[in-house]
């Protein structure tokens, strides 16, 4: 018989978990502590929900698989700033080798928050590989990510909040959430040129 997780759709236990809109704000804390890259879809909404259009965040709307690699570029050029990459399980799986590149690049003030709902939320909540046996925290450890923490309950949030701020990374917080939809932030800008210019202006003082 095939893996039951692969066949039963929603019956993976994930609905007993916390909702992303409740937990991500607590877990990230002050978003201004970071330079942020948000992957497309769910985590884009999570990060926009913290502060709409924040100029310390570049929020992707496509280019699935780009988030971690884009974050490495940030961290290489700004080694004294804490970089936060927010990405979903589906987005991370599309370019999973980037975790090896995080380690190879030597970046340290670098944190990944993987919001794992075990679903492709944007395309109809189809289950992902993480509901079929893939453990992304184990994957991150295997790739050599130094500090790794899985969060499934509320009392684990303070430790995760602190880990995202560790300067001796790279850090990987694996947040397991239920399959409820992210809260849609009102009036999000989809203009990537505008976001690029705003990010550079805020950081560098010129566009």
């Amino acid at each position: 018989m095939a893996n039951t997780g692969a066949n039963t759709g929603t019956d993976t236990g994930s609905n007993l978990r916390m909702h992303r809109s409740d937990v991500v704000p607590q877990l990230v804390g002050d978003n201004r502590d970071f330079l942020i890259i948000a992957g497309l879809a769910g985590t884009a909404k999570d990060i926009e929900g913290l502060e709409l259009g924040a100029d310390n965040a570049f929020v992707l709307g496509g280019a699935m698989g780009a988030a971690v690699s884009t974050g490495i570029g940030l961290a290489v050029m700004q080694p004294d700033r804490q970089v936060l990459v927010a990405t979903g399980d589906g987005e991370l799986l599309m370019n999973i080798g980037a975790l090896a590149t995080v380690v190879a690049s030597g970046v340290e003030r670098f944190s990944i928050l993987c919001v794992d709902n075990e679903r492709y939320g944007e395309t109809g909540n189809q289950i992902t590989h993480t509901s079929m046996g893939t453990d992304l925290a184990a994957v991150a450890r295997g790739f050599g990510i130094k500090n790794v923490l899985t969060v499934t309950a509320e009392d684990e949030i303070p430790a995760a909040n602190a880990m995202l701020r560790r300067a001796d990374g790279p850090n990987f917080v694996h947040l397991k959430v239920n399959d409820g939809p992210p809260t849609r932030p009102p009036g999000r800008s989809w203009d990537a040129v505008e976001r690029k210019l705003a990010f550079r202006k805020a950081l560098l003082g010129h566009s």
Partner: protein
Amino acid sequence: MTDQTVWGNQLYDHLVEYGVSLFAYVPDAGHKVMIQRSLDDPSVASVPLTTEEEGVAMAAGAYLCGGKSVLLMQSSGVGNCINMLSLIAFARFPFVTFVSMRGEFGEQNPWQIAMGQAVRPSLESIGTLCLSVEQAEDVIPTADAALGMAYKSQCGVAVLLSQKLLGAKAF
């Protein structure tokens, strides 16, 4: 075939002088000199990739933080980059890649022909401009043109290093 130890070293020096401080690469014989120079140079970051599209996104991230970078890859890697290049095109990120060509002038491995021939049309279809180099004396002027087009005109530019320059491997 030309002497890579001459033009490869000149090209590396030229890129660093222009301000390039991140070399992202998937290894290839055609980039051997530049990769080694970047690994030996403590003033730059030299990052090996597991797949070429990582380097496209990394270039965008580096630019957001005020840095300049190049992606070094073989022509077969171009196919891996196409969707990621939508990030460059849509957000108008400066992006420069040096592509060591296979599957064109004198190729003897039949597996290389299809992707080698698809490089230019694929890149152009996603909005990445292509400049070809066939002779050693054109390497630096072409690199200079690519950097200017990318960082002044906010374009993605691929410099295609021909097998006329690199030589075709014997099989």
